[in-house]
């Protein structure tokens, strides 16, 4: 009810409504900028540039991967959701009213008491293949398990329905839906519906599709996730923070690109992957990583040069002993440690 203090809509809101109707019907028309919230920067400078400032809210982002990389794709989507939730006001979009909490937060706000929830939709099939979302793991990943609504459906069609319902509710920050394989129901129409719902409510949608082919989709961005290339085999056994090779295959009207991203769950921020993930100075006893890559400003980083021309092949190449130096020299001046 607090939505409508005035009975008469002002001219601006009528204009917005018309723009919205046109945007819905036309397909290609850009929605009115005045009601689109600013994108959420992910923290990786080159990627944010490519995305036009960051991840757009109130839109559909599709994350594809091979079946074997299903858990990685889910992890990437979870990181995006965690980033949205941690960004001041990132969990709400000013569709009709300004956010109330914007000023109260620091730049990397932790879970705020009033933060919005995230809906995770999986199928029985996906839960059997990769397991169910696990609270302690999500917490360690930077996503508050206490603010998750988790749905498991029998069929992909029901998963789409649940995602649509979630996108129609303004109570959420994000909807993360995982649909395995290439079911016929996940088509242009279905993704278009998700996009429209997301635009109307301002809720951000992440559609995770492990095992999906190259089918069409109405998503604003489409990613292909694989393990970070060029990490090599290490003598030191410590594990670095989660990282992905993220190929931005579709990026609305902009060019895409390939990025190696690392997720810092404690800071809720993405960074370019450091050149030497395999730090020889990690202490195997405690697993405590060395200082060389523990911060975001590790030595030798080349932030501006992280983006590389879009590759044609979607499969991650360069997991060989030579590393990926020939494949994308600008990305990772990597050598095997040891």
């Amino acid at each position, binding site marked *: *009810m*607090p939505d409508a203090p005035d009975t008469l809509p002002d001219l601006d809101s009528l204009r917005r409504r018309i723009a919205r109707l046109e945007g819905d019907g036309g397909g290609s028309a850009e929605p009115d900028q005045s009601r689109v919230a600013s994108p959420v920067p992910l923290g990786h400078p080159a990627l944010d540039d490519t995305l036009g400032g960051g991840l757009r809210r109130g839109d559909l982002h599709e994350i594809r991967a091979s079946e074997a*990389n299903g*858990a990685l794709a*889910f*992890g*990437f989507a979870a*990181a995006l959701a965690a980033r949205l939730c941690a960004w001041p006001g990132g969990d709400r979009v000013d569709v009709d009213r300004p956010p109330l909490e914007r000023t109260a937060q620091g730049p990397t706000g932790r879970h705020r008491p*009033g933060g*919005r929830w995230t809906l995770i939709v999986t199928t029985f099939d996906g839960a*059997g293949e*990769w*397991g*169910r979302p*696990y*609270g*302690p*793991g*999500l*917490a*360690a*990943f*930077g996503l*508050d*398990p*206490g*603010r*998750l*609504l*988790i*749905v*498991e*459906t029998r069929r992909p069609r029901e998963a789409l329905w*649940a995602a649509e*319902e*979630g996108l129609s*509710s*303004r*109570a*959420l920050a994000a909807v993360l839906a995982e649909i395995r394989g290439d079911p016929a129901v996940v088509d242009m129409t279905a993704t278009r519906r998700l996009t429209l719902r997301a635009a109307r409510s301002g809720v951000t949608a992440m559609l995770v599709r492990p095992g999906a082919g190259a089918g069409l989709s109405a998503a604003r961005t489409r990613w292909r996730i*694989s*393990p*970070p290339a060029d990490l*090599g*085999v*290490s003598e*030191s*056994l410590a*594990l670095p*923070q*989660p990282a992905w090779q993220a190929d931005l295959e579709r990026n609305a009207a902009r060019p895409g690109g390939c990025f190696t991203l690392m997720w810092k*769950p*404690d*800071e809720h921020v993405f960074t370019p992957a450091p050149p030497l993930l395999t730090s020889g100075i990690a202490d195997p006893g405690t*697993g*405590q*990583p060395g200082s060389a*890559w*523990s911060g975001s400003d590790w030595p030798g980083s080349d932030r501006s040069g992280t983006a590389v021309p879009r590759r044609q092949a979607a499969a991650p190449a360069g*997991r060989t002993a030579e590393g990926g130096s020939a494949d994308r020299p600008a990305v990772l001046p990597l050598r095997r440690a040891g």
Partner: protein
Amino acid sequence: MRLAAVDRVAAAAGLDPGLTLADARARRPDLETFPADPEADRRTLLALAEWAGRYTPLVSLDGPCGLVLDIAGCTHLFGGETALLADLTGRLRRRGLTGAAAIADTATAARALARTTPGTVVPPGGNAEAVAALPVGALEADPSTVATLDRLGLKRIGQLVGLPRQTLAARFGPDLLTRLDRALARADEPLSPLRAPPAFLVERTFAEPIRLVEDIERTIRTLAGHLAEPLTRHGQGARRLALTLFRLDGRALRIEAGLSRPARAPDVMASLLRERLVTFDSGLDTGEGIELVRLAAEVVEAFDAEQVAAARIAPDRTEDEEALARLADRLAARLGRDHVVRLVSRDSHIPERAAAAVPAVDGLSGTHWPQPLPRPGRAPERPLRLLAVPEPIEAIAEVPDGPPIRFRWRRVLRRIARMEGPERIAPEWWAQAGGGLQEASEDAATLTRDYFRVEDDAGRRYWVFRAGLFGRETARPRWYLHGLFG
């Protein structure tokens, strides 16, 4: 083989339940028999009990073949007790069921009368008179007691009334006395209704049965509006709604919907029930039509104080919470309450017990996860996804108690490039039952686990463990994969 039940014709021919099949066949070669199916009988009786809900919400089962209806306060809706009884038996007959029914002050008396003189309606306070002439056997006491009474010449219930209570109790035990007291309405008789009586209930009868789903939806909307009135008056909101559609052919369809937050707005209640209607895969089977629709708020909770006040203080927050609750309810109504969950933290260091999924409909507030969560600069200690049951893997380690070098999971060999561990997790000796491990391996649940976070040479991360300390707990430790990192 023996006869389990006989119909009226067979009974008239002198066949009784309990007779052996051979004897019965000898007496009546033309006897038709069907195998007894107690389970099906029970299902039929339960369906009948659901249907009997049209007369009163308090329906209890009485043995394997009877129902007890508590009709106190309901009879005026049907034009009195006699009319109610006629209506009930008439409907049963039209459905092809032979029923015997009676009305009395207590269930024991009504039961005794139904089995001896069906159709009796005992006026209030007339129990003693009505049962006096009935045979003692109608009390359904222990058969040996009945036989003894019979030998003593005590054949009618009325004969027992004047006997000294102490003597009866001493001779036959307290059970007979209790039954007698109940039959005479001298003692209360506790009943256990199949469903708890709803807090509020509204219904609508149709002279002309309705069939169309649209009509049902419109009725739901109207009834929800009616239900909102008493809820508002009493300051309550519904936590569980039940819609019962009574079909003309005597079936009753029951639809339940839970609410994670009390609600009483007609739109909210109606849309939730409509969501449930959709779940009938092959469409709603209305049979020959629906003659009665009932909407009940079965579980209610105080509504006003908390929610109204909160809405005034923080309208934005309250609106969000409300929207979230409505979303959860809608999802649960369509997908089933156990498939829409939230995660709660449990006090256990056993991974599969450290978190639990609870239905969102049971409430969405009050979840707190222990801090601090992520470790600065470190990989997460726990996987994003946990398999329902740890899957056995073939792992190779350099030494039996050392870290794994490679392992085979789902037929694929994975070489380990990086690894952290072990993290030793001892079994909770005080809580051995439960957990997914028993299914995977009987003994693994009682063994110490050494967990490793491993990354294979393709860059994927797994959470694996070795069950059992080498040399101390087992000679050949087994390996399992428990979860996947993102």
